[in-house]
């Protein structure tokens, strides 16, 4: 069974700080997706990464993909409170989701 693991599971960080969320997956996948979920809400697509070395950025979030290491990262730059949410990665046509990382940004 394909496994998708994220760490950390919970992250509390101060505004203005930088941090990285990691997504490891256990088998080859030609694409990787990142989603955001606000508490009690649905999922919002953030990024799709298609190839080794792919990097995408949107505002304070930057995602990258290393297919050889089966690793994707979501880097948060100068966090703000509005980024507080749970972030999920997903692989294999979005059929396998990671465990999620619950991010809380503290003023």
């Amino acid at each position: 069974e394909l496994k998708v693991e994220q760490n950390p599971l919970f992250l509390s960080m101060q505004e203005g700080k930088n941090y990285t969320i990691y997504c490891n997956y256990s088998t080859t996948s030609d694409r990787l997706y990142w989603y955001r979920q606000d508490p009690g809400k649905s999922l919002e697509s953030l990024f799709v990464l298609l190839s080794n070395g792919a990097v995408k950025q949107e505002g304070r979030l930057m995602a990258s993909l290393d297919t050889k290491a089966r690793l994707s990262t979501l880097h948060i730059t100068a966090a703000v409170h509005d980024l507080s949410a749970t972030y999920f990665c997903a692989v294999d046509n979005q059929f396998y989701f990671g465990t999620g990382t619950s991010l809380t940004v503290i003023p």
Partner: protein
Amino acid sequence: EPEVTQTPSHQVTQMGQEVILRCVPISNHLYFYWYRQILGQKVEFLVSFYNNEISEKSEIFDDQFSVERPDGSNFTLKIRSTKLEDSAMYFCASTLGREAATGTDTQYFGPGTRLTVL
């Protein structure tokens, strides 16, 4: 902006009862999906549907589950005999296509139906 809608927002049912969850995907989308999320846990894929057929399904999607597109707009998930462990948030999603390179596989999720089985 077009959006995926789901009804009801919350469904409470007794164990053993049948439930039907409804979704209206974005009108020009061709691929439809159901996911579930048990409270506080990860999102789990159930089934994908294209051209009036199931394309893929997970191990969770057993004989108790079925999907249907009864008309040109609705996409439904039926659970025949609900169990306590079926309690979860159920999300519907739709995509225009399946090509990541062109972005047609971007999933648009509905707001979800919270199913509570007593």
